[in-house]
């Protein structure tokens, strides 16, 4: 019998993990909490000046799939004087064990308590993670409200799409970074280092940060509302914001978002972290462009990420190679909004297939516009029998598609499906929204009618050439008006109205000739209502979030943990009206909670778009014709290319 050859291995220390062994072995997927992944930075925390902990306030597997964090993590760790660690929301089983055993939340790599860091950076990707932010702060022992934090607490910074209306979260954050992280973080770290060395206070540091372009320090801005003491000039404005002002003269009244001008001359994480456990996106992500030319009127991303900026083909080829080599991933995916609009898509996709297909690397395609090119590519990289073609018409009739400025026509959909059927596909997925402005019963019933036409197109194929029955799956989500879109003023449906519309659609599906080939799913309405309030809320929503958290709400994005009745109680107890935020029609004269942010897209443009929407008039995409949205002032991307 052998004895241990290498006792050091048998008795090796487990890197002084923050959580004791028996707890790690009792929770689901302990790998979420141990760090030490491939390509993770490993630094001595004592050797750096700035400790930054990057947080994705959801479970590890989701957080690890996020490109934005990988970009900033890589960028920060390139600096010798900075160590960037990571933290994710402990899953409810770990959350419970940590509370019971008084274990403070820690960074996964250094295993240091979050409270020992200089910064805690939280990415705000969706509204339903807001209670998880409080969980992170609470488990870290950091006061939930920024005003209660001491010199020893980390500076808590937020960024990401939801920071385009940061107001419901305003009390919890020391500052928000508006826009793309690549541009100003080094400057902020230098500033912090210098001021800390000079023994400046937290308040002084935050005041200095507020002068850096793109930075919003909510405590330095005061909001006042129309109330009994200050009656509104118009009853429509009752309860809305009366004024929003900085408390110092030397900080900006309007905060302009930051953008990267040249996407081919910037940081790209060539050595992204490879988790041990399977992340939601277990593959290389290659971001091909930022922004979108389309201008769909419901889409916040399409507005806030303007202007569209492409990365060069050379940049992408070079990075694809390094990414695949450094991670060993067996799949690469292209990431962007509306990828079909990327100018060199065909060349890039063919290059990736030609170069990597023989090396066992799968190329996964984001949802592309269905045409001859995309079908040809798909047939090379997917098994036609197992895959489906996807359309996102968003609305059932051409009129409503014009209202939302979705350029997809019925002809595109029928022809695209037809080509797919001819090539052997039998499955079609379609995405719709219900509750869009101006929607009528005709629009709702248009959804099953459109699906039926697609099915009918399939049955035009001679029987002997068909591969069995066609499967059409239509899904609808409920429309949530978002800040900085032309629909930011519109009333949202109530839960009852949403469900009523879904029933109308479902009923009509049953009447269709090809109903047996069609399936219809709709999303939950409860979550949509909450998302609506959080999306267009103001600072008066913050106490509701705290209340819901105190009553046990976390992981609201996970239907098995979402507690709608508890949220409703929290609204009641705080005396906050959901209708004020969701179903009230806002006047274009109203001072909106997010109006202090300058995304480059002018309010004038949004109003113009809203008016055109009501007349069902389309606006051309940026490549076809400039619509004068205002973002040209950034002098980047397509706005500059057009001029040349």
């Amino acid at each position, binding site marked *: *019998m*052998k*004895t*241990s*050859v*290498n006792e050091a*291995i*048998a*008795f*090796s*220390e*487990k*890197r002084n*993990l923050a959580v004791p*062994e*028996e707890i*790690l*072995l009792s929770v689901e997927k*302990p*790998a979420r909490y*141990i*760090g*030490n*992944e*491939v390509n993770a930075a490993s630094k001595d925390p004592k050797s750096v000046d700035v400790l930054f902990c990057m947080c994705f306030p959801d479970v590890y597997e989701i957080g690890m799939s996020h490109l934005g964090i990988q970009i900033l993590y890589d960028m920060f760790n390139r600096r010798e004087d900075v160590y960037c660690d990571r933290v994710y929301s402990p899953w409810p089983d770990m959350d419970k064990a940590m509370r019971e055993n008084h274990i403070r939340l820690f960074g996964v790599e250094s295993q240091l308590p979050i409270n020992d860091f200089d910064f805690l950076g939280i990415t705000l990707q969706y509204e339903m993670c807001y209670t998880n932010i409080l969980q992170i702060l609470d488990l870290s022992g950091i006061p939930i409200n920024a005003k209660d934090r001491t010199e020893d607490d980390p500076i808590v910074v937020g960024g990401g799409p939801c920071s385009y209306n940061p107001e419901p979260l305003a009390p919890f954050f020391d500052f928000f970074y508006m826009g793309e992280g690549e541009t100003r973080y080094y400057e902020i770290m230098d500033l912090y280092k210098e001021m800390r060395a000079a023994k400046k206070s937290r308040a002084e540091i935050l005041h200095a940060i507020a002068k850096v372009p793109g930075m919003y320090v909510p405590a330095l801005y005061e909001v006042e509302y129309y109330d009994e003491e200050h009656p509104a000039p118009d009853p429509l404005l009752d309860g809305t914001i009366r004024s929003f002002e900085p408390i110092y003269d030397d900080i900006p009244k309007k905060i302009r978002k930051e953008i990267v001008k040249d996407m081919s001359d910037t940081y790209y994480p060539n050595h992204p972290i*490879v988790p*041990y*456990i*399977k992340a939601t996106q277990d593959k290389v992500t290659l971001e091909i462009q930022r922004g979108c030319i389309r201008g769909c009127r419901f889409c916040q991303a399409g507005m806030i990420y303007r202007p569209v900026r492409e990365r060069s083909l050379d940049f992408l080829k070079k990075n694809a190679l390094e990414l*695949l*080599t*450094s*991670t*060993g*991933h*067996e799949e690469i995916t292209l990431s962007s909004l509306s990828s079909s609009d990327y100018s060199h898509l065909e060349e890039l996709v063919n290059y990736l297939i030609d170069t990597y297909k023989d090396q*066992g690397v*799968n190329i996964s395609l984001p949802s592309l516009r269905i045409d001859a090119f995309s079908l040809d590519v798909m047939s090379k*990289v*997917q*098994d036609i029998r197992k895959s489906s073609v996807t359309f996102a018409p968003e609305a059932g009739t051409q009129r409503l598609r014009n209202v939302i400025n979705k350029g997809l026509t019925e002809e595109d959909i029928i022809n695209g499906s037809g080509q797919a059927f001819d090539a052997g596909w039998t499955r079609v997925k379609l995405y719709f929204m219900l509750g869009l402005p101006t929607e009528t019963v005709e629009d709702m019933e248009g959804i099953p009618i459109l699906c039926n036409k697609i099915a009918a197109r399939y049955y035009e194929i001679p029987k002997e050439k068909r591969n069995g029955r066609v499967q059409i799956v239509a899904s609808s989500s409920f429309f949530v008006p978002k800040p900085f879109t032309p629909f930011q003023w519109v009333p949202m449906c109530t839960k009852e109205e949403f469900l009523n519309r879904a029933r109308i659609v479902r009923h009509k599906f049953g009447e269709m000739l090809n109903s047996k080939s069609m399936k219809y799913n709709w999303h939950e309405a409860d979550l949509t209502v909450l998302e609506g309030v959080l999306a267009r809320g103001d600072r008066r929503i913050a106490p509701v979030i705290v209340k819901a958290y105190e009553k046990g709400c976390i992981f609201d994005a996970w239907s098995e943990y979402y507690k709608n009745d508890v949220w409703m109680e929290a609204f009641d107890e705080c005396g906050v009206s959901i209708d004020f935020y969701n179903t009230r029609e806002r006047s274009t004269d109203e001072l909106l909670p997010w109006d202090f942010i300058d995304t480059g897209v002018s309010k004038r443009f949004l109003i113009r778009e809203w008016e055109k929407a009501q007349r069902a008039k389309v606006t051309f995409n940026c490549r076809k014709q400039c619509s004068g949205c205002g973002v040209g002032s950034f002098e980047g991307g397509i706005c500059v290319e057009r001029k040349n």
Partner: protein
Amino acid sequence: MNVRIKFAKYGSLVYIGHLDVMRFFQKAMRRAGIPISYTGGYSPHQIMSFAQPLGLGMSSEGEYVDIQVYDTYSSEESVRRLNEVMTDGLKVLSYRVLPEKAKGGMSVIKAADYMLWIEGRKKFPENASQLWNEFLQKPEILATKESKKGETTLDIKPHILDSRMEEDRLYLRVSTGSEINIKPDLVFRTFCAAFPESFPDPGNALRIHRIELYADDENGGFISLEDMGDEVAEGSLS
């Protein structure tokens, strides 16, 4: 050409489950540039098979993965390349080519060596060896095995193939594999149940380390999986 890779798993990697270790190695092969063979089809995958899953929480210096390659570096270079892409807690120990006729995969496994101890390497009572011998001399050692189908009782005595009790650890060789698989903690806990006063059940303070996996050899003994392969002194790649 079939290759057998031996590796150790320890430190914080004891929290990484079997399936995730498989995924780790798939990616590691690519990072290390090992000329591994793929199956065909729309989603080609590496030709790779792992031995005997190791329980969560256990460490090991006797883990194995068999792969098929279409070319090879020397054993030394292959080990070097692989270790360059491992993380702290995974270490490749050897890379050996299997003879053409070697039985495929991991169906050959018959036994395993383990080391067991109590957290903090707490010393066992002074009469540990004596109690252990007493335990082994019983006509039969009945143990209750829990499985998905419920509880079964079996005599584990014939499956304790070798053992040695030391002052702070117990070495065990037990039957392992697809036919009969005896877990080391079952042996230890059965022993504890027999002498509860001297050996109270250690609960989650029991530590287990796998040392080696074996197949039957031609002479009725055991041969380690590693010894079934041969070192590649000079690979066709360099």
